């Protein structure tokens, strides 16, 4: 059996890659995908720990997360489409009208 720490390490690596992607990528779609990556890294940690401690709460949470992520994707992609329509770009560095 694969030990828990492997799962958690994979989860941390995935999360870090997601976070890194959010921080350094300019394309909104890529950032979006990176967020999904971070969510799924968390999901992985949930199921791994749930399996390890034999408590089903983690599994249930993951379903919630997947549901929320699906909703989020629907809203997020709609936002990105709306942004693209008005700006002709999805480069987040161009969206700086809130600059102080």
């Amino acid at each position: 059996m694969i030990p828990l720490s492997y799962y958690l390490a994979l989860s941390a690596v995935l999360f870090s890659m997601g976070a890194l992607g959010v921080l350094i990528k300019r394309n909104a779609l890529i950032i979006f995908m990176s967020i999904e990556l971070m969510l799924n890294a968390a999901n992985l940690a949930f199921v791994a720990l749930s399996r390890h401690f034999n408590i089903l709460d983690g599994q249930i949470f993951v379903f919630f997360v997947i549901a929320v992520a699906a909703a989020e994707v629907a809203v997020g992609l709609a936002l990105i489409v709306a942004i693209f329509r008005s700006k002709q770009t999805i480069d987040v560095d161009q969206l700086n009208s809130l600059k102080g």
Partner: protein
Amino acid sequence: MMLSETTSGLFFNLVPWIIFFPVIGLLVNLLFGARMGEKAVGSVASVASGLAFVVSVLLGYSLWASHGEAQVVPFAEWIKIGTLDIPWNFRVDTLSVTMMLVVSGVGTLIHVYAIGYMHEDVRFKKDKKRFPRFFVFMNLFIAMMMILVSGDSYLMLFVGWEGVGLCSFLLIGFWYDMDTLGRPSWANSNAAKKAFITNRIGDLGFILAAMTMFWYFGSLQFGEVFVQAEQIAAAQPVVVIAITLFMLIGVAGKSAQIPLYVWLPDAMAGPTPVSALIHAATMVTAGVYLVARSAPLYVTVHGAQYIVAMVGAVTALFAATIAVGQYDIKKVLAYSTISQLGFMVAAVGMGAFVAGMFHLVTHAFFKALLFLSAGSVILGLERGHHRAAHHGGHADHHEEVFDPGDMRNMGGLRKQMPVTFWLYMVGTLALAGIFPFAGFWSKDEILLDASKHYPAVYWLLTAAAFLTAFYMGRQVWMVFFGKPRHAAAAHAEESGKLITVPLMVLAGLSILGGVLNLPFKGFHNFAHWLEYTLGHVEVLGFDLVVAGVSTLLALAAIGLSWLLYMRNPLRAGQEDPLKKVLGPLFTAMERKWFVDEGYWAVFVDRYVDIARFLADVIDWRFWHDWFHDKVIAGTYNFLSRKVLDLRVDQGGIDAIANGLGELTKQASVSLRRLQNGFVRSYALAVLFGVVAILGYLLLK
């Protein structure tokens, strides 16, 4: 009614009504006088005064029935501070009732006379609206005089003393916006001010006397003071001398004695009934009453008595000399009043309180008679002046202002005004002291007393009596005999019944007044009456020498005046024959010995100088220019501009407020850099934040 029967059916409790009746009268006239018509106004005032007289008579009867025992009727609590308790009590004794009878009796007659007099006066002076005002003042005067004579303490007496002074001021200045001839000027109100201010000097003396008394006697109630008088006079004679002499200053002010008499002649600016009531018969005798009332104090200090007597005697002679040189009919009578007041003051000063009070009473009769008759003469002349202007209007249009009071405009009035003439003769003979008129008896009693105790006073008073007869003779010859010296005198008309009837009553009293106190055994009624109040009084008999000398001198004086003024009656424009005889001396008399000018030079001008110095230098230059403008305003400006504005406000408060603003601005400038609008840097910040929080939670 307040007819409470406490003292065995006597009327002592009615005593407050002597004040209430005149006050009711004045209130009625004050509130409704403008709508009531002259007859009604005058009737209300006269009835008010008359009822006060009725009450006085009832009080007199009650005293007589209770054998003259003095009553103190408590009326109201007045001043009560700690142990100091000065109630308003009425004192009903023979002395105060005598004054009440004179004040209200003569006062009522003068009120009636004034209805007729003021009716014409307000028409000559062309202001009918002042008619009710006159009677309001007159009733107020009666009320105040009653307070003066009925009070049971020096403080209550002082209230009345000030009150009558106020009424005197109001009535002298009754025609305040004109002079005595009706021309627009402030002469009358200046006369009123002179009277008031001169009296104020006298009042200061009164106040000093009252304070000294309170300090050493611990009371101002008559009874309590007099009980201690002898004891304190023995222990500290200086105290009693000081009190009596301070009081003398008050007496000199109110009763027009040297050196404060100067206001009384000017007071003739008031309407003639006022001159008769206030400035001859009643108010000016308040000083005499005060000395008589304070008899227990005066008899303990003979030195003070002597000074009082000398002041009175010198005034009597001094004023008589001035009266000789006057041309105004009322001025002659005014100086005569001063002179006669001198007689009274001399009498009460010598301790002859009965003689002084007796002369006060008879003088009230005949001097009121003389003044009112003089008023009748003046009215007659004014009527004559109008008629002359109407009838023979051919020549007199360019005529200057006509003075109806100037005796040089009169002459021969005996034929035009026979009733007034006879009434005037009665007054003259009474004043000159001719047997058997009232003045003869009262003056003689004073002279007799003086001849026994104070020879110097006797000679002064005898000389004054001689001059009295002379100037009255001169006046009668000039006014009623000879030929008219002016068209107005030729056309003069007799006055109506309303004016002459009160005069007849006064004439009757002037003839018969002597009966009060004839110097024969069994007839000293007045002396015994006052004895109840004054204690034992020396009753003098009849001295043929003194009476003879004074009568002969009076007759001689009248004869002398006949020689000068009747053998060759004065013609219009002619100089006074006495001027040829006396030369510059007469001029000095005519100019009142230059006393007024002297007072101006010594007091008034100096006072004006001081006032001007205070106003210009102290007030304006020092106080206003320097202290106010420089010191206060300058300091204020310096403080507000240089210190508070620059340093505190701009440098302190503004700096804090501005600094805070600047700080916030700086902070926001630095902080806005964080708000760069790059979503990735926000995400980085969130990441750092999460890492930091998690790190903290994990490493805690």
